[in-house]
């Protein structure tokens, strides 16, 4: 008994190191609900406040560019409205505006933080887009902030398709370059050519069909020789985004019930 105690006393540094190191490994590799409830992410009130106050200073730096982008977008939207019959009461999707207060793109699994949360009726699993295309999906929501899984995250799979045909595949990032993303499992017979536009597919409950993603920069057959793998250049510059829109699908409950 004495020897055992001696052993622990002698190696107490190593044991502490091993415990803390394995504790961090558990945190890295587990997705359990326990850790989700710990609020150890950038939406908890303290960290979000820090980001919000630093953002309130830095957001002045590129106001001019942001304004130009928004004006351009408004003109396009006006054109669409004038050319269509519009009925506000029976909308399938609601759109909320929001600002990014923390962006990241240098890791393998990137997350963004935006300044809208539960109190603005944002919930988990809502799509986030900018005027140029898809940004990500909301993941964790606190009272006034939410965390968004960026499309530059190796854990995120999205349904996407070619604009000119209905062949669809799975969009997933390989973690290498932040300006391109990979579209896999597209059937061999789909008519791909370089420069084709990739948009979100209609098979997703989160995004409406037809939101822009990017254009084909190169493609090849994968190992099974049955599917095409496409390298997609993103329309969005993920390093320079500020204003985003959150899409709420009003038919989500109904669709989920149907699939249960």
């Amino acid at each position, binding site marked *: 008994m004495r020897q055992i105690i001696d052993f622990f006393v002698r190696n107490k540094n190593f044991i502490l190191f091993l415990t803390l190191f394995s*504790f*961090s490994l558990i*945190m*890295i590799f587990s997705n359990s609900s326990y850790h989700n409830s710990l609020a150890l*992410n950038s939406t908890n009130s303290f960290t979000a406040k*820090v980001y919000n106050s*630093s953002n309130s200073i830095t957001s002045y730096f590129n106001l001019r560019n942001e304004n130009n982008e928004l004006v351009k977008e408004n003109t396009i939207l006006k054109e669409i409205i004038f050319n269509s019959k519009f009925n506000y009461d029976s909308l399938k999707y609601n759109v909320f505006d929001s600002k990014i207060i923390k962006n990241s793109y240098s890791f393998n699994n990137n997350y963004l933080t935006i300044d809208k949360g539960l109190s603005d009726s944002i919930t988990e699993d809502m799509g986030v887009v900018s005027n140029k295309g898809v940004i990500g999906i909301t993941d964790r929501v606190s009272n006034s902030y939410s965390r968004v899984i960026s499309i530059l995250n190796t854990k995120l799979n999205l349904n996407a398709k070619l604009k000119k045909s209905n062949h669809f595949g799975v969009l997933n990032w390989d973690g290498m370059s*932040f300006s391109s993303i990979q579209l896999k499992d597209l059937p061999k017979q789909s008519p791909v050519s370089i420069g084709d536009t990739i948009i979100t597919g209609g098979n997703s409950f989160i995004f409406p069909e037809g939101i822009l993603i990017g254009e084909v920069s190169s493609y090849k057959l994968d190992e099974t020789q049955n599917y095409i793998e496409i390298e997609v250049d993103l329309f969005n510059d993920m390093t320079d985004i500020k204003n985003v829109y959150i899409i709420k699908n009003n038919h989500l409950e109904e669709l989920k019930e149907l699939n249960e």
Partner: protein
Amino acid sequence: MNKLTSNIFTAIFLIITQVIIFNNINLFGYLNPFVYIVFIIYYPIKNDRIFFIFISFLMGLVIDVFSDTLGLHAAASVTIAYLRPIFLKISFGQAYIYQVIKFKNIDLKDKLIYISLLSIVHHVVLFSLEIFNFSKTLFVLEKSFISSIFTITACILFSYLFKTNER
């Protein structure tokens, strides 16, 4: 100023600068210096090791919470905090064994070796856990090596900043 309070202030200062400034540098798109390890590098040598390892873990965890990389920085920080005596022995030799070194008055060459060892180990642990894919070993090494150069430069600059503060 009391040593404990000054350490706490340094830690808070480093966390804030890391999170707000250095996490957003993104040189060539993916390179960020991890300057917060200055805290582990310059922590007083005569210390309670248990407390030091634990405080380094906490430091990493706080950085993790801010950058949504739960566990990554904590694992890397606790590793270099545990291995620090070995690196001290390698880079300072006799001086460390007789406990006579002070970070203020060691020459740049020894300091450079010491900082490089710590930051390279930190970055290798960090990036191999982050990417966690054997087929990308080369990419991991490349990324850790290039980021280390960046971190080392920033750490040396930071050490001069603190020197002027102490006088």
